[in-house]
């Protein structure tokens, strides 16, 4: 297991350098620069522009800028946002809990609904129930997120008025951010009704963000389950006279879950991509929208720092998934 872990960790090093290089060059390959965009129609004097570019270190050769950037990373310095004048890492840490909370709720929702739905569809293979579940999953998978979010807002918040339109908590509540997770902070604040308000604000964005992963997980569970249900050991278990629930729960599910866990791990990337749209619709103050705004502004340090941090999180989650995979499936860790 240790060798397995070390092998996985070793892979992270080239990945890290790859990511820094991609993040660094990506934003610089885009035409336009932050100063032209800041000045807009008003324009900026070329001398003044050169002076400011020098002040930010953008006059150095690219390789020098890259080395400065990598050295900065090892000192925990990702640079300063051109727009807000705040350190990139501080901004990320302020905003990330909002995205994490939303993504966690979404993935929990997707797993809790997706796996049972997939099992059910597999067990009832070929029935109307199976077709209905898989049909719905296909619709969910191809759902345009922005449209779907607005539709839910108009129906549930506008017409039925069950849920708030957007934001993380009612504006009536105002308490300091402790963990950044609104569900926890609202409980810590001790203010009456704050927690319920935070939950209500989470419902629609979680549903929207969970839609695609839910569909993927349901489909993946169904096909993995079908494969396993046809195996000899399942037939043996049935032949032993085990109840259908223990055949499925004990023997089939554990093996069927292996590819599903991988799928869940891969959904983290999907969640973060989906968060960009979901955060914009629901005015959710997370990293997705922050990054998109920064790309539009050519806020170099935010984009290269933000991409690196997000890539780091995805790598970490994938590492955890790999380890879990090894735990569920002993064959992997021995290879």
């Amino acid at each position, binding site marked *: 297991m240790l060798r397995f872990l070390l092998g996985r960790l070793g892979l992270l090093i080239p990945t890290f350098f790859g990511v820094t290089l991609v993040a660094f060059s990506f934003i610089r390959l885009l035409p336009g620069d932050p100063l032209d*965009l800041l000045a807009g129609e008003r324009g900026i004097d070329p001398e003044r522009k050169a002076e400011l570019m020098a002040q930010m270190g953008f006059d150095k050769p690219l390789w020098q800028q890259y080395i400065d950037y990598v050295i900065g990373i090892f000192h925990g310095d990702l640079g300063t946002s051109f727009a807000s004048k705040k350190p990139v890492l501080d901004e990320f840490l302020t905003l990330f809990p909002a995205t994490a909370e939303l993504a966690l709720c979404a993935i929990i929702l997707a797993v809790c609904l997706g796996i049972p739905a997939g099992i059910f569809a597999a067990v009832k293979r070929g029935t109307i129930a199976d077709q209905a579940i898989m049909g719905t999953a296909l619709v969910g998978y191809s759902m345009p997120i922005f449209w779907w979010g607005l539709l839910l807002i108009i129906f549930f918040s506008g017409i039925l008025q*069950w849920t*708030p*339109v957007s934001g993380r908590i009612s504006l009536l509540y105002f308490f300091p951010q402790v963990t950044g997770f609104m569900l926890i902070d609202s409980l810590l604040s001790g203010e009456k009704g704050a927690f319920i308000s935070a939950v209500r604000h989470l419902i629609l964005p979680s549903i929207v963000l969970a839609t695609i992963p839910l569909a993927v997980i349901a489909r993946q569970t169904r096909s993995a389950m079908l494969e396993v249900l046809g195996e000899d050991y399942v037939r043996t278990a049935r032949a032993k006279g085990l109840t259908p629930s223990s055949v499925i729960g004990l023997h089939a599910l554990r093996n069927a879950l292996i590819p599903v866990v991988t799928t869940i791990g891969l959904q983290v990337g999907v969640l973060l991509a989906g968060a960009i749209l979901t955060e914009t619709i629901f005015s959710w103050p997370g990293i997705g929208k922050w990054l998109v705004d920064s790309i539009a502004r050519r806020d170099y340090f935010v984009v290269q720092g933000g991409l690196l941090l997000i890539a780091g999180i995805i790598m970490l989650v994938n590492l955890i998934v790999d380890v879990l995979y090894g735990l569920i499936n002993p064959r992997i860790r021995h290879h």
Partner: protein
Amino acid sequence: MNFQKTLKATLLGASLAVIAATGASAKTLVYCSEGSPEGFDTALYTAGTTFDASSKPLYNRLVEFKRGTTEVLPGLAESWEVSEDGLEYTFNLRKGVKFHTTSFFTPSRDFNADDVVFSFERQLKKDHPWHEYTPGTAWEYFNGMSMPDLIKEIVKVDDHTVKFVLNRPEAPMIANLAMDFASIVSAEYADSLASAGTKEQFNQQPVGTGPFAFVGYQKDAVIRYGAHADYWNGKEKIDNLIFAITPDAAVRLQKLKAGECHVMPYPAPADIADIRADSNLTLMEQQGLNVGYLAYNTKVAPFDKKEVRKALNHAVNKQAILDAVFQGSGQAAKNPIPPTMWSYNEATEDDDYNPDLAKEMLAAAGVENLSMKVWAMPVQRPYNPNARRMAEVIQADFAKVGVNVEIVSYEWGEYLSRSKDVDRDGAVLLGWTGDNGDPDNFLAVLLGCDGVGGSNRAQWCNDDFEALIQKAKTVTDKAERTKLYEEAQAVFKDEAPWATIAHSVVFMPMSSKVTGYVMDPLGGHWFDGVDIAE
């Protein structure tokens, strides 16, 4: 169904409990703003969204625009005198003006001349300790308005008198001082941060003299302000002002309808009819202080001939553009300045849409089989909601007079920088939103000889026009300036360096409970003087 009822009752009960728990006596106005401020030290930035959240609620200026107009009124300066030669502006400062007392700063003195000197010198002097107080500091508006060349020095005469000495006469100077970058900050607060070694807080926890004091900002989510109890102009009627940052226009409207906010900016044009029909909402509208235009390159043949430019102007069907691009939220432009601006030349006759005449004029000018480029901006701007669509309409119009148009576009930063090129190939769609309500801010910036190779996209330098606008800069009498600008507009129309296209109309939907809101022709959003009916 029962479940639905129970759920709805539970949720409704929960929200009522919340309102009861927090007390309904304080009046809170919620504004669903369109984006996050970059920071709160206004002079560092150029974006309207940042100004709305910083300079407008938090600060005052020496002079202020009278709400709803571009007329200048006394602000922190009670009065001012301009010397005969137009080089010295002396301001008599208001006494007894208090800075905000907040959880992070308690002022020990009232506003005085030191604050004025500090507010400007930090932008002007490169060796000032606050000139580069945070990484990437760029006083871009101050620089953009050519203040470093204009201001020679700022002198504290006594505690309540400040003198600005200029290098040359500049009639729009007073209007410039009403702009956002000229907001007055607290020198005492700056000193206390400097000694604590936390200068960067100046941009994050602002202190001003304005109608509202800063309470807190949760990044990308909520900004909170409280009414300034000791405001020199009287305490506001609303106790709390909240900006709920809501980037999507459709979501803003849903929040407004659900009562989650009271005022929203920038509705989607498609929603206007729906908003008008809603009896709970009020829709205010105002002509924007802007112009959208097509600038020919007057340095490149055949556009160096005014007959050719004039002919093409007759080929543009402005009504078709208003219908297709502005969808009822625009007005055809005949002058380079908007009709809400003083000195607008009512007498100007627009080049009417007449393709036959255009063809004749082109033939008379000896132009045949003309092919040209039309540049379409890649972004939505107040003066042009869809440049691509506009370019397509122009393409079709020009095809009718035998001119073949190729539409080109670049990324926004590139677009702005490439379109400045004197040898640029093609006519450029662009526009302008006024900064200070002074005609000089349109005519000199966009059409003056200094702007060639820069903000003058037509690369047009006309001696008659230039003489008029230069003279108008030095004259302080408004009636005389008006006359000069009217003449300049006549020269412009005759020379046709642009096809003037449209001025947009700006809409502002709000709850019908909101009273006292006044729209700003300069595009800002102000909440002093606003109240909510119970």
